[in-house]
C-alpha cells in the first residue's frame, strides 16, 4: 500500500540540472501522470523514484519510510521503461515469473499465478511465445503482467504507450487504467502526450527543465493554468500580447497590437502593465459575416484543417496576430474558403491574463 512522497529532491548531471527541488505526494492507489517534453527531466524523475538513480539531495518516502538506503531490488517498485525491456531469451511466462522467482517463490506457484495474470491481460494463449514474436501492444501487456506478478503495488511507467501506433494508443490507454484500478496499483506514468495524461491521470503534473510547473486534476490544470507554459502545454491555446488600458471592479480593457481593444474579466493587473491574454482555441467563435459584439475582431481566413471532431480555422487578424478557432465540422462555416473575410469573438470570462514574461513570450513557450 504505497503512498509516495518526495521532499526537495534534486539531481544534476554535470552542469545540467535534471531535477530541481522536486516535492510532491502520490496517494495510495492514485494514478499520476507526469507530463513534459523531451529533456524535461520526467524520465530522470521516474528513475530516481525507483532508486536506479540516486538523488543528490532530498528524500523519497514510500509509506513514510525513507528509501535512502533501500536498494532498488528491495523497494518493490516496478519500473517499465519505454522499450519494455522484456528479456529476449525468456518466454512470455518466464518473463512474468521472473520477479517471483527472483524473490524465491516456488516455481510451480509462480507459474500458476503468472498464468492467472496472463489471462487478465488476455495473453494466456501466448504464454510460450518469445517476446519478439509478439506485436507491440502485446509486448506492452507482457511488461505490465510482469510488473503485477512481482506483487508490486507501485508501477513506474515510462511512456508505456509511446512505442505504439497512435490509434492503438487511444484504445490501450483505457485498458491500462482499468488494469491498474482492478489491481489496486499506485501508478506513476510519464508521457509527452497531453491528451493521454489528461484522459487517464487522476492528477497530472507538468514538468519543465526539471521543475514542477503545476500539479492537479486535469480539469483544474486546464481551467486554472498557473503560468503561460502550462496554459500552452495543456490544451490548445491562443496568446495575445497587450497592455492593460483601464481596469474597474468588473474587469479590464487591454490594448493589443494595432491599437485594437479587448475586454477581459481579470482585475489583478494595473494600467500600463504589459500582459498576455490566453484564450482556448475552442472558445473562439468564428463568423463568416461581420458581427456587432464585445471582443470582436476581423481578419482573413488563412487555414482550415480538418481534425475529425473539429475543424481548426486559422485567422490572420487585421493587426497581424494569428488566432486559431476550433469548430465542430457540422456548422455552416464549411463553405468558407481560404482568403475569405471573417470575424472572431470570445467571451470575457473565457480569457486568462498572465504577466508579460521577462524573457519574452516566445521563449516562455519553449520547453527548454
Amino acid at each position: 500500500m504505497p503512498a509516495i512522497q518526495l521532499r526537495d529532491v534534486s539531481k544534476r548531471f554535470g552542469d545540467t540540472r535534471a531535477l530541481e527541488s522536486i516535492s510532491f505526494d502520490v496517494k495510495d492507489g492514485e494514478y499520476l501522470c507526469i507530463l513534459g517534453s523531451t529533456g524535461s527531466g520526467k524520465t530522470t524523475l521516474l528513475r530516481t523514484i525507483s532508486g536506479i538513480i540516486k538523488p543528490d539531495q532530498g528524500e523519497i518516502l514510500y509509506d513514510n519510510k525513507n528509501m535512502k538506503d533501500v536498494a532498488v531490488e528491495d523497494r518493490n517498485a516496478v519500473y517499465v521503461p519505454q522499450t519494455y525491456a522484456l528479456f529476449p531469451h525468456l518466454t512470455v511466462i518466464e518473463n512474468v515469473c521472473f520477479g517471483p522467482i527472483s524473490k524465491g517463490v516456488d516455481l510451480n506457484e509462480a507459474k500458476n499465478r503468472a498464468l492467472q495474470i496472463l489471462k487478465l491481460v488476455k495473453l494466456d494463449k501466448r504464454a510460450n511465445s518469445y517476446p519478439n514474436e509478439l506485436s507491440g501492444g502485446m509486448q506492452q501487456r507482457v511488461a505490465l503482467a510482469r510488473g503485477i506478478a512481482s506483487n508490486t503495488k507501485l508501477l513506474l511507467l515510462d511512456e508505456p504507450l509511446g512505442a505504439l501506433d497512435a490509434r492503438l494508443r487511444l484504445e490501450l490507454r483505457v485498458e491500462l487504467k482499468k488494469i491498474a484500478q482492478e489491481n489496486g496499483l499506485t501508478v506513476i506514468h510519464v508521457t509527452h502526450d497531453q491528451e493521454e495524461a489528461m484522459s487517464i491521470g487522476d492528477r497530472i503534473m507538468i514538468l519543465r527543465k526539471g521543475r514542477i510547473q503545476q500539479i492537479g486534476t486535469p480539469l483544474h490544470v486546464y481551467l486554472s493554468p498557473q503560468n503561460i507554459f502550462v496554459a500552452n502545454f495543456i490544451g490548445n491555446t491562443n496568446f495575445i500580447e497587450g497592455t492593460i488600458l483601464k481596469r474597474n471592479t468588473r474587469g479590464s480593457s487591454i490594448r493589443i497590437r494595432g491599437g485594437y481593444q479587448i475586454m477581459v474579466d481579470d482585475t489583478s493587473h494595473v494600467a500600463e502593465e504589459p500582459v498576455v491574454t490566453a484564450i482556448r482555441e475552442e472558445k473562439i467563435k468564428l463568423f463568416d459575416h461581420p458581427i456587432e459584439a464585445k471582443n470582436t475582431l476581423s481578419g482573413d481566413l488563412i487555414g482550415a484543417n480538418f481534425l475529425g471532431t473539429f475543424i481548426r480555422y486559422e485567422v490572420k487578424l487585421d493587426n497581424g496576430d494569428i488566432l486559431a478557432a476550433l469548430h465542430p465540422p457540422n456548422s455552416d462555416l464549411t463553405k468558407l474558403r481560404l482568403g475569405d473575410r471573417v470575424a472572431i469573438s470570445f467571451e470575457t470570462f473565457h480569457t486568462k491574463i498572465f504577466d508579460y514574461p521577462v524573457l519574452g513570450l516566445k521563449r516562455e513557450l519553449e520547453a527548454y
Partner: protein
Amino acid sequence: MTKVRVVSLTKNYGDIKALKQVNLEVEEREYLSIIGPSGCGKTTLIKLIGGIVAPSSGEIYIDEQNVTDTPIEDRNTGYVFQEIALFPHLKVNENVGYGPLVKGEDREVNRRQVREMLDLLSLEDQASFFPVELSGGAKQKTAIGRALASGSKLLLLDEPLGMLDLKIRNELRYELRKLVKDLNLTAIHVTHDQEEAMSISDRVVIMKAGEIVEVGTPRKLYIHPSKIFTAKFLGEANFLEGKVEKIEGNYYQVNVSGNKLIALGEGAVLKENEKCVLAIRPEYVKLNKKKLNEINTWSCYVINVSFIGSTILYNIITDTGKKLTTKYILTENEPDISVGDKLYATLSSEHLLIYDYPHEGLDKALDLE
C-alpha cells in the same frame, strides 16, 4: 495531371504478402496521406514508390514514365525517412547541399540553393551545426530541406514526424503542408497518426493487411466512411450489432438487442432481416438530463468522466447494458455531469452509420494489430 500512378503493385517478403495488387493515383500538387495500423503495408508502398524496395509485380509511373525498374538514384524523388537519417558527418548546410553536390552542381549554384532552402525553413542560424547539435524539430526540417534541395517536385514522407514530441509534431505538420502548397509540390505522406493525416491532406488512403480499404477526403472518410474499418481507424466510434427490421427509403430501422434505432443509410445495400453493424462517433451521441426525444433515445448512467481539454469523454451504460462513449465539445462551459448521473442518450439518425455484418466477425474486422 497524374503525378504518381501505381498499377497492381504487389510485394511479397517470403511468405508474407506485404502489398496485394494495389492501385493508386496521385494528382499533381496533391497532398495525399496513407494511414493504417502497423503491418498494413503503408511503409512498403512508399518505399516501392521511392525505389528503395523493388516490387514483386506491378508497375509504378511517375510523371507518366514507367519507373518500375529505375534505380532509386535516378527517380528524382525527395524522400524523407522516418529515422530522419541526416548524414552525421556533415553540417546542416552540407546535408542540404548533398543532392546538388552529387549531381555535380557548380559550387556557387549549390551554395545559393542551400541558402535559399535554409531561409525557407528558417534554419539559417543553424547552418554550420552538426546533426547531433540540433533539436528534434530542426533535424526534421533539415531532412525536409535536404530532400527538396535536389529540385524534386515529388516529396515522399515516410512517418516524417514520428520521432518528435507531440507538441512540436502538431506545429510542424501545418508548416509541412504550407511548404508543399507554396512550392507547388506533390506529397505522399505515410503516418499512423489519424489526426495528422486528416489535418494536412487533400485525400487520405486507409490501408489494412496489404490492401487499400478506402480513399477519400478527410471529411468524407470521417463523416461518411463507406467501410466499417475506416469508421474504426479514423477517429473513434461506438459499434452496435443489430438486425435490419424495416427499410423506408434511405431510413433503416434496426433492432439492437430489443431496442429500435433509426439510421439514415445513404448508399447502404442491406436487406430486411439481415444482420448489420451500426457505428456512431462519440460526439454524435448527445446526453440530456430530460427525455427530449423518443426516437433513438436510451436512458443511461454515467460510469466514467475523462476530461481531455477541448472535449470531455463520458462513458455511459444504457439500461440494456450497452456501453457507449460520448464526447462533449467544450465550446461553452463544461456541463454539470458526474459519475452515477442518470441521463438520456440520443443517437443522431443522420450520423448513425450502417454496415453489413462483416463475414470475418466484428472483432476481427475492427482489429488494430
